[in-house]
């Protein structure tokens, strides 16, 4: 029976201290990576949702501008509160309404359609509207619209536009 030779250093495995140190370092690195990933994802999500809301605000403004230009008369109503109004456009004063824009309190979205609540009408964009104020003066042949949309992550975007009747 031969004598048992002592193990070489490379065959002795890891000590508890070495494993602990490696685990601590690995945990710190993983925590840093996860934190960085979550922060980056939050930043990207916030930026992209705000960019979407900005585009939607521009879309609402340009759509209202186009519709007002094709009209000759407008009326606005405070519905349901002082921050939100309905805009009703007419080809000429006395004609039936040609197009409408309004804020629906059931979904907080801006809707548009040939008449308020019509089956063919629906929300224009998916961003919630905190403010939708319309100023349709009988003295000035123009409509002023100010709106504030809120993105999915909570940031707000304001847009104001003025459109002149051209019909």
């Amino acid at each position, binding site marked *: 029976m031969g004598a048992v030779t002592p193990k070489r250093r490379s065959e002795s495995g890891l000590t508890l201290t070495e494993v602990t140190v490696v685990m601590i370092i690995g945990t710190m690195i993983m925590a840093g990576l996860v934190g960085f990933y979550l922060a*980056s994802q939050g930043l990207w999500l*916030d*930026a992209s949702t705000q960019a979407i809301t*900005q585009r939607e605000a521009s879309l609402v*403004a340009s759509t209202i501008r186009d519709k007002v230009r094709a009209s000759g008369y407008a009326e606005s109503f405070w519905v349901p509160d002082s921050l939100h109004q309905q805009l009703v456009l007419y080809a000429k004063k006395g004609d039936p309404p040609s197009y409408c824009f309004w804020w629906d309190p059931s979904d907080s979205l801006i809707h548009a359609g040939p008449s308020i609540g019509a089956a063919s009408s629906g929300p224009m964009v998916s961003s919630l509207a905190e403010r939708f104020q319309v100023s349709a003066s009988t003295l000035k042949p*123009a409509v002023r619209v100010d709106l504030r949309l809120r993105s999915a992550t909570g940031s*707000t975007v304001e847009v*104001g*536009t*003025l459109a002149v009747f051209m019909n």
Partner: protein
Amino acid sequence: MSLNLNERGFSLMEALTGATISVIAVLGLAYSFGVGRGLVNRYEVARAALGEAQSQLEALQLAPRSDPTLAFGYVSPPTPFIYEGASLGTSSWRVLPYDEPSLPGTRNLKRVVVTVRWTSSALSDSVSLERLWVP
């Protein structure tokens, strides 16, 4: 017993070099996210400025064609450009002659240029919008 080269693992220098490259890559990625967020904020103001210029052009349509503020060479005094309650810059317009070759004369159209200038995050920016009008 000797070990082959591919069984020796990483040296300290190799590990440090790899870690440095990884850190630089991660920092570059983080920087690109920050720059992207900054651009979104910058173009938020730019969109508002474009809306201001469009509104100004629309408002000028309400003025009679003989109005002195629409005469050739007129430069309007700057008015404040306000966004989210803060004055970020100024808005003004100027009226220039425009020569449309298919029309008689050399000053046959008015070129109305509305310019909105603003400063946001120590960065100056501007947007101009113009429209040709029949005098």
